[in-house]
């Protein structure tokens, strides 16, 4: 009884997924005029693995209070499969190159905008007679440098005191 229910549930789910996949395929094939890319090639292994895991779970045990546990196990496997696929994709020289290029483009386009924005803010604050971020940073830097100097003086005094302590009185 429980087995039949589980199989029915699984069949419904599988049918929905297949129909959804077909609808997506139709959409994608309609869109580009030539050589349509196959976006499913990337996640098909993951989908297949997930389907197998789901089928295995249902085949192994009937619907029970542990259905929640089976669901968790299924999702864990699914996530693990995704993680593996993504890890492989991101561990390639191509991905690293693409990421580097994208970052470079962002930085190249961001640099002049940032410069203009910084100058604008600086001028606006100056006209309002308020300190700018760079001025505050400069003050903070001076404090850090002062602290460093104090530490060096402290070290020197400490060294002198230690030497004096060692000398016979």
């Amino acid at each position, binding site marked *: 009884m429980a087995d039949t229910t589980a199989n029915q549930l699984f069949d419904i789910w599988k049918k929905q997924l297949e129909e959804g996949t077909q609808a997506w395929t139709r959409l994608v094939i309609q869109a580009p005029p030539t050589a349509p890319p196959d976006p499913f090639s990337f996640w098909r292994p993951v989908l297949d693995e997930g389907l197998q895991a789901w089928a295995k779970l249902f085949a192994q045990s009937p619907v029970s*209070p542990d259905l929640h546990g089976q669901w968790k196990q299924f999702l864990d496997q699914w996530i693990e499969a995704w993680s593996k696929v993504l890890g492989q994709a991101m561990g390639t020289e191509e991905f*690293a190159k693409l990421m580097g290029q994208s970052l470079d483009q962002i*930085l190249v386009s961001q640099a002049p905008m940032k410069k203009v924005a910084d100058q604008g803010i600086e001028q606006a604050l100056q006209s309002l007679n308020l300190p700018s971020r760079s001025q505050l940073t400069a003050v903070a830097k001076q404090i850090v440098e002062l602290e460093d100097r104090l530490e060096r003086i402290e070290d020197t005094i400490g060294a002198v005191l230690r030497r004096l302590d060692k000398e016979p009185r």
Partner: protein
Amino acid sequence: MGQERFADVVERFTNAYGVVSGVAPEVLTQWQEELDKLQRRLTNLHRLVTNPPEPKVGQTPREEIYKKNKSRLYRYASSRRYKTPLLFVPNLGISRPYIFDLLPNGSFIEHMTREGFDFYLLDWGVFGPEDNDLTVEDCVTRILPRMARKVLESSGATELNVLGYCMGAPISACFVATHPDIPVKNYIDMAGPIDFSKVGLFGLWLKKDYFNVDRFVDTLGSVPADMVKAGFKLIKPTMDLSTSLNLWWNLWNDQYVEGFQALSKWANEYVAFPGEFFRQWVRDFYQENKLYRGELVMGGRPVRLQNITCPVFVVGAKEDYIAPPDCVRALLDAVASREKEYVELPGGHISLIAGRGAARHCWPKVSDWLASRS
């Protein structure tokens, strides 16, 4: 009141289910437990969404010994059974160090202090734009020696042990190798990369051919916390999904929820890198592997790992994708110590040192190794 009503409903449902379908009593009990867990999940979910309590982290008593700019040196309360103090050097930037003292009855620092170690933590702090000129060299030649001397001064000891974790390990290894004037009795590297040619995904992404560190630092000034976060999320994109799924699964367990909240607070509190620090870190360590190749110069002195002669203990994590075991283990071949040991333990970069697995596998190993030498 609400819970009693729900329990009554559950009981009525399971009784009726049993009568109708004639299922075994143990299955009924299992149903009842599942429904009870579900009810507790929903209660905790409601609490988490509507009124999440602020987790209390870092509760082991401690005293601030010294502060230098943003960095702080803390000494933790302990019975101080061992005369040699331990200076713990964690990573700079990325995250806050309270992960090592996350919750009572489950933190590395608490374990070490309970074991009787005189434990000092160097908290590098959260750096601002005024610190953008800070370099790795400054940390090795100015901050660490000062902190080590303060440890010796405050403990009254003549020697100290140094434990570096993650990025803190190569930084502290540079310090030990270049400062023979500071007597380091034992050195421990936990999940700290040494041979950066084997450092995994980050090594690939930060390759000189693909990543222009100069353009990055010159444009941004520093590495903002959001950028650090993006980098770490990218290295394991499914992590958040697994975390959410595990939370739902364990949401009925109050203790788990408390731990999750503390861990979640830590995991979402990223810390920026000072610009020049990041430049030197990426260029000299990741891109040119200068530390392992013996080409690094700091404070005018060459950094040679073979200058480390004290006993060395290296701990790698089997599933560490930030500092894979091979790049950590490399320290053993680089040092000149006669007494050196490597262990590879279960867990990832964080779970090596924090969490239940760490309490079972890692902490006792570290404290046992150190106890006989302190």
